[in-house]
């Protein structure tokens, strides 16, 4: 549905995108992940025809955005970083304006009502935009992108500035939209991408670090097992004792302290369980364990590993260009 090939974009001497390529299939939700300044917004702005690239092509539904901008843009709904809202208009006036701007040919009122229903804006449709809360603005931004029922939705940081309840709402909304649309969303929140997307492209410094299914990333990382234990006892000696437990590959203090107990991360070889071993080792020295839990890797860890080394070391996954 979307093919991005060898995009290069520089602002002066600063290379924002360096040979970025990826593609998104029909009805797939793709997460563009990266720290601030990685080139996510630039990539999205190029895909929507707002900026143009120094080199490379973008095809939406087989249509080149530079050669036939009108046709390509009709297939895209775009939510920029800041929702493009006119403060002086009412919600329904604004949506009508967007409807006319996109030259849609549906039954206008029915279509806009449907958009309001999906984004739960119906109660706010008579309100003036400048008085809306951030959550409503963000939803109106998404509604604006949905007008005209475009095949492709490009959402730049759709949950930024929302409270936790709204974040969950917007994520659910995006997941629902993904059933009928191709969605690309950008985020620097890794759990969000993990929760919503089918596939993740990780960008850093304008380069694609990794392009994988969300599941395979999580699985790759889960091969390593990690537990968190809280033990009452002298930190240095506890660490030594933990490291001496069979099959433990590493142990380190987390830096958390609660009265006389400290927390530790204990990692072990893939497919092993060291919890019993840790228990007996501590029991032998009479250091009570006051807490122990399994700790999976989050995408945060993957991300840090990737950006530090450019490689998912130890997980068997190679960096892809």
């Amino acid at each position, binding site marked *: 549905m979307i093919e991005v090939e060898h995009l290069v974009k520089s602002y002066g001497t600063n290379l924002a995108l360096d040979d970025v390529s990826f593609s998104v299939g029909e009805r797939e939700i793709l997460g563009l992940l990266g720290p601030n300044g990685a080139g996510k917004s630039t990539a999205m702005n190029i895909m929507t025809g*707002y900026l143009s690239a120094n080199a490379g092509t973008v095809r939406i539904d087989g249509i080149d955005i530079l050669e036939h901008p009108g046709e390509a*843009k*009709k297939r*895209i709904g775009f939510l920029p970083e800041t929702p*493009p809202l006119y403060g002086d208009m009412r919600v329904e006036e604004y949506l009508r304006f*967007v409807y006319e701007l*996109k030259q849609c040919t549906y039954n206008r009122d029915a279509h806009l009502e449907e958009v309001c229903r999906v984004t739960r804006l119906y109660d706010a449709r008579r309100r003036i935009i400048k008085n809306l809360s951030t959550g409503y603005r963000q939803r109106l931004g998404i509604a604006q992108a949905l007008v005209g029922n475009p095949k492709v939705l490009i959402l730049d940081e759709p949950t930024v500035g929302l409270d936790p309840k709204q974040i969950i709402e917007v994520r659910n909304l995006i997941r629902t939209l993904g059933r009928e649309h191709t969605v690309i969303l950008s985020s620097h929140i890794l759990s969000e991408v993990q929760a919503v997307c089918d596939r993740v492209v990780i960008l850093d410094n304008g380069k694609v670090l990794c392009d994988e299914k969300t599941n395979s990333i999580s699985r790759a990382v889960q091969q390593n097992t990690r537990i968190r234990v809280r033990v009452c006892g002298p930190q240095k000696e506890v660490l030594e004792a933990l490291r001496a437990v069979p099959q433990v590959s590493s142990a380190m203090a987390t830096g958390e302290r609660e009265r006389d107990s400290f927390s530790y991360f204990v990692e072990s070889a893939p497919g092993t369980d060291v919890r019993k071993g840790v228990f007996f080792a501590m029991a032998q020295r009479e250091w009570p364990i006051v807490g122990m839990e399994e700790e999976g890797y989050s995408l945060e860890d993957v991300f840090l590993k990737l950006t530090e080394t450019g490689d998912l070391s130890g997980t068997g996954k190679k960096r892809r260009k």
Partner: protein
Amino acid sequence: MLAIYKREMHAYFTTPAGYIFMAIFLCAAGFLFSLTTLQEQSSDVSMYFQLLMLAYIVLIPLLTMRSFAEEKRNKTEQLLLTAPVSLWSMVLAKFLAAFTLFLGTVAVSSLFFVTLGMYAEPNWGRVLGCTVGMILIGICFIAIGMFLSSLTENQFTAAITTIGVLCGLVMLAMLNGFLNSYVLRQILNWISIYSRYSNFTMGIFDFSSAVYYLSMCAVFLFLTKRVYEKRRFA
């Protein structure tokens, strides 16, 4: 294009911008009109139009300052630029909206001449010629104001630079008196917005001047479009 035009007109009348422009325009025009005709007991309107042109220097920026600057500041231009609408339609729609409001205000201010006609016998040819001339100058100024508005994201910067540029353009004619070279004077006369206006004040429809004003307008609208094109590639 129609959508953007409607949205612009909507913005003029749901924010103070349109009302402020109309109010100040009509106040200034009314004041100048009573000063030059009623107070002077004269039915000659050419002085009124000459002073009105000076008032345009401040009035037109009120109309054009927000057109592109505000879109840029609120990031709403991203919506327009990623919609299936060409740059030309965006620029033209905004220009036509400003022109509509301007024309409407000029039409209202033309009621002054009805009053004048009730008490005197003005030279109607001259009134008509001057009005047409002023509308053409207005078109030209609007295009310049829009171009300068597209260069900045601050409305006031846009307004002040527009006032400066329009001032300069009108003042060009006054430089004439200080120049000795005949060739330079001729060139200056040819460029000057002010000198080109003089035929209209005699009730003559000067075709070449009309073409001049319209092409000035076209050039600045084209430059505005180029600003957006260039920014895409920058």
